[in-house]
């Protein structure tokens, strides 16, 4: 379809310039260009991390380990974007599917059950398991919209970690499941188990997963299903009256979104080697949602970039801000009874305050996100009416 629909999207509005024919080329070789882009990013990120000022913040190894971790959140944001950005269903319990993916792998490859199923097939199993739970969550929420939907998904997001916490016999409760196997290539490229010390295999693995997910999401976005999602978001009754089965379409959004979180969960459990219920609290859902909103709902690359930026800001940015302010040795100000000592503030603890601030500012100044989709921009910033533009009118039928 790249051949068929791309001209419509790219050449259409007249505003988009075709730089050296690159846009056309990308349109015709979508998956290849996604691969190329991810490869470039994969090479650029480690290089950037050894350049000043970033090399002062940590070794390249630390950075790469951080990127691998950020990749988990990129996956979460990509999946949540399907539910929230494409289909317009507000999901506040997304971490539940992340948890389900992680526990699926924990059961399949740890001393807890005694099983040792390899990582690679479990990626698929984790995705499918999460997708099934996506349907289970989707089913009771089909008639709900907006606030009501958000509350039900919030409830689901709370139930899942609580079940993992309290079903001691099956989940080992608070202590979680430890001793989960690492991925292994069984000697391919001379790599056996990935271990805990070398971040590079994880980095490459998560980028590979992200590449595949982005390719699939692009294909779905440009298909009959992708159009049905957007139509559903725009006007549910009109969508139904155009022959779209709203039930199937919503369930597919929930399950495809959940399966991406399942992938992230399997990778996360394997990388960390342990899962506990407190890793999947509401903050994770919230962070993923913030990444989607700040990155630009509905835009695949936008939410991926948003996730990376937010993850790095919160893991590195806050730490460096903290160190920077401490290094200034600001004197404590005493204004009567109030003591202001900026040097004593731990900025790492202010993470959610800063999140909130960023979200408020974003919603006021740029509600469509950092990298909005064309559609979302249209929605939030009304364009001038057609009559004022010099638009082609070959039929000459307008009065």
């Amino acid at each position, binding site marked *: 379809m790249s051949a*068929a629909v791309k001209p419509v999207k790219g050449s259409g509005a007249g505003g988009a310039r075709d730089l050296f024919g690159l846009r056309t080329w990308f349109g015709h070789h979508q998956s290849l260009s996604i691969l190329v882009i991810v490869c470039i990013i994969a090479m650029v990120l480690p290089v950037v991390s050894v350049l000043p000022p970033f090399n002062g913040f940590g070794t390249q190894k630390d950075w790469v380990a951080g990127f691998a971790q950020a990749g988990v959140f990129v996956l979460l944001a990509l999946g949540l974007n399907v539910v929230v950005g494409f289909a317009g269903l507000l999901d506040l319990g997304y971490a539940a599917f992340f948890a389900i993916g992680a526990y699926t792998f924990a059961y399949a490859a740890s001393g807890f059950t005694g099983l040792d199923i390899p990582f690679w097939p479990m990626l698929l199993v984790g995705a499918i398991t999460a997708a099934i739970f996506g349907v289970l969550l989707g*089913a009771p929420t089909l008639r709900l919209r907006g606030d009501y939907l958000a509350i039900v998904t919030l409830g689901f997001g709370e139930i899942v970690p609580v079940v993992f916490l309290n079903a001691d016999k099956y989940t080992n409760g608070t202590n979680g499941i430890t001793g989960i196997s690492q991925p292994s290539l069984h000697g391919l490229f001379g790599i056996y188990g990935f271990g805990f010390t070398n971040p590079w295999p994880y980095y490459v693995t998560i980028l590979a997963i992200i590449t595949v997910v982005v390719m699939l999401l692009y294909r779905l976005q440009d*298909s009959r299903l992708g159009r049905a999602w957007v139509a559903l978001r725009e006007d549910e009754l009109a969508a139904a009256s155009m022959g779209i089965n709203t039930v*199937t379409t919503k369930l597919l959004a929930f399950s495809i979104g959940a399966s991406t979180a399942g992938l992230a969960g399997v990778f996360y459990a394997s990388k960390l080697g342990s899962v506990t219920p407190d890793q999947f609290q509401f903050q994770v859902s919230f962070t993923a949602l913030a990444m989607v909103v700040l990155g630009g709902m509905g835009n695949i690359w936008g939410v991926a970039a948003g996730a990376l930026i937010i993850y790095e800001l919160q893991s590195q940015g806050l730490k460096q801000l903290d160190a920077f302010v401490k290094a200034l040795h600001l004197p404590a100000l005493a204004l009567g009874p109030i003591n202001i000592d900026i040097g004593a503030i731990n900025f790492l603890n202010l993470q959610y305050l800063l999140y909130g601030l960023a979200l408020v500012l974003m919603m006021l100044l740029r509600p469509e996100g950092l990298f909005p989709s064309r559609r979302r921009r*249209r929605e939030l910033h009304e364009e001038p009416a*057609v009559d004022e533009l010099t638009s082609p009118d070959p039929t000459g039928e307008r009065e």
Partner: protein
Amino acid sequence: MTEATTMTTASAATATAAATAPLLDARAVTKRFGGLVAVRSIDFDIPLGSIVSLIGPNGAGKTTFFNVIAGVYELSDGEISFNGEVVVARPRRTWAEPIFWFLIPTILLVLAIGALLVGIVPIGEGLILATLAAVIPALLVALTRPRWYVAMLARFGIFRSSRPNEMVSLGIGRTFQNIRLFANMSALENVMVGMHSRMHATPADAALRLGRHRREEEAAVKDARKWIRYVGMAGYENEAARNLPYGHQRRLEVARALASQPKLLLLDEPTAGMNPVETREMTELIARVRKDLGVTILLIEHDMKVVMGVSDRVTVLDHGEKIAEGSPDEVRANPRVIEAYLGRGAASA
């Protein structure tokens, strides 16, 4: 319109074959909202290949009747058959439907509890898992209502009216009184959404970029362009629907409905808010759709010039009841119609 002839639907062929059989046949249709009777025991049929208009003062029940046909509302009484098949009627024996969902899971659960009571714990736990696993497909079938499931229910006398999307698959397309385009999608995308029910590529086909998906998409883009040209909007394909001039939005709605290849097209006040020139163009479009494509049309309209110009037959509703039916001229002369519109006394004056 050369492309129009190539797009002629199957209904055009059948139009000549069985010109007398009604395409849509409503019997004693009643719709109550609480104590309010919006539509009261209306008999109504639409002959194949005709243009039938539904008129009446505000609040006469026109749009309610329309929505019943489109599958938006459940019916309080009566039944509607389309193409000889009952598609809307009062729900029957719906209480029995959950039996089908819970039959297998319940059996498994009883066995599981039995096993646990007897003391065979592993089998009991396994059966509980099987119960959960059985719930999921049952749930999916119950929610998505595939055709075989509906047919199976019908064999047991369980009936639920078709949903709006099923109506489209059967061949009923519609437009809305207040324009309901997908505002942020382009004109072309809007029409492509209209084709949804005539496309068959699955998400898996799209994910794997199978030839089936690609060919279907290419054909869909081509057809969508044709429909946009057909309603006289060439050049606006990539314009967001929200940015289109009002008259074009109305025509785009018609194009979107036509893209689903309907046998019956429901038009809800297609010329509301239009100037005389736009109204004339819309009237011509309606006549052309019937002539070129053989599509049967049900029209709700306030503009009498439109109604009298294109209709084969006019039905007048007032306070949810049918007060007159006949050719435009007959209806115009009918004293009850004049009374409904202008009040008692006007008829004799």
